[in-house]
Structure formats: C-alpha cells, structure tokens
C-alpha cells in the first residue's frame, strides 16, 4: 500500500536553529499538508499546499514557517528559528485531487511523523 514517508523520525535541535522536515507524499497525490501535535494534545492544522503554492494556512503558521516542494517528490517544512514551544510531532499528509478515484478514499494518508525536540 502506498505510504507517505517522513524523515527524520526524530530530530533534536537547539533553540534558534533552523530545521527542515522532509516528506515524500504518495506519488499521484496533488494536495499536501503539514500538521503538528504537541505531546498529549490534539492534532493541529498548519498548512495546505497545492499546485506549488500555499492554499491555506493556520494562525500557527507564522513567518517562522515555510513550505516548499523543491522537486517532484519531496515536500518540506522549514522552521527558521526554532523555539522551545515548537517541540511537537509533525505529520505530513497527502491526498488525491478531490472526488477523483475511489469515493471511499477521500481521507488523507498521514506519514509516521517527525518528533522535533527543541532544547
């Protein structure tokens, strides 16, 4: 079964450093997303990306965050200057063009996540 792959699985970084989280979405998917989950809390939407541009973003996704699809396969989330409160699990997800294919497949496929710890 196709998977969304995220690397690294764990990342420890010092406060103020830049981090790049990487994701390889499912190959025929066109919509890409980043979510974060602070330990023990709910999953929060960060940003959605389609056709090489951000389609929606949440209040969490401030100027410290950016996303990029540098080539045909990778989708990255960059945090420019990490803060302690950025420590969380970051999930990438992808989905097909809406309403295409199997109607039961309107759900997203999530990656296994990157646990980011800022110290």
């Amino acid at each position, binding site marked *: 079964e196709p998977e969304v792959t995220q690397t690294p699985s764990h990342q420890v970084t010092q406060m103020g450093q830049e981090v790049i989280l990487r994701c390889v979405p499912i190959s025929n998917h066109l919509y890409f997303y980043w*979510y974060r989950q602070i330990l023990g809390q*709910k*999953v929060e939407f960060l940003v959605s990306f389609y056709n090489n541009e951000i389609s929606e973003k949440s209040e969490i996704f401030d100027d410290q965050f950016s996303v990029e699809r540098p080539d045909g396969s990778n989708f990255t989330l960059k945090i420019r200057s990490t803060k302690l409160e950025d420590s969380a699990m970051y*999930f990438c997800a992808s989905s097909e063009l809406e309403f295409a294919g199997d109607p*039961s497949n*309107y*759900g997203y496929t999530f990656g296994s*996540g990157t646990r980011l710890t800022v110290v």
Partner: protein
Amino acid sequence: ELKVEQNPLFLSMQEGKNYTIYCNYSTTSDRLYWYRQDPGKSLESLFVLLSNGAVKQEGRLMASLDTKARLSTLHITAAVHDLSATYFCAVGVQFYFGTGTSLTVIP
C-alpha cells in the same frame, strides 16, 4: 475557525462492554473522518463519512453522521483490549481535529 469537540476525553471500559464517543462540530461541513492513533504512532484512517445519515461499520466500530445536528458518533461494541488507543474525529477539508478520546479497554 471550525471548532470540534469530543467527549469523553478519557474513557476506561471493560472488555465486552459497549460505549459511544461523541464528536460535535460548530459549523456546517460536508465530511467527517475518524482516525485512530496508537501511542507514538501516526494516524490511521478508520472512517470517512460524507453525507447526512451515513453509517459505516468495521469490526467492532461503527460510525455515524448527523449533519443537521453537527454530530458524529463512534460506537464500540463488545470492546477488546486491542481497541485501546486515542480516537480523533476530524471535520472539513482542512481537517480540523477534535480533542481526541483516549480509550483504555481493561481485561
């Protein structure tokens, strides 16, 4: 911003018992999802509900959607230990997630 609330937040139940988790959301949406998350793991898709009155069942789990009441339920029948996990509902195209229900099934 669409708000999604789940209750209960924590649920401890004995094996063999039945229980229902509720998901309420604040504004109209044409889709609702249920996900399962095991500790330290990613989100596993359980159900996608796309219309009012939709009901889907998989094993001991059954999900339903009432778009007029803005309510979805996840019913657990004859719980087994393997169902212990956190269950999230998510609403809308942006996937606004609920607060999650942490389920523990006790032998």
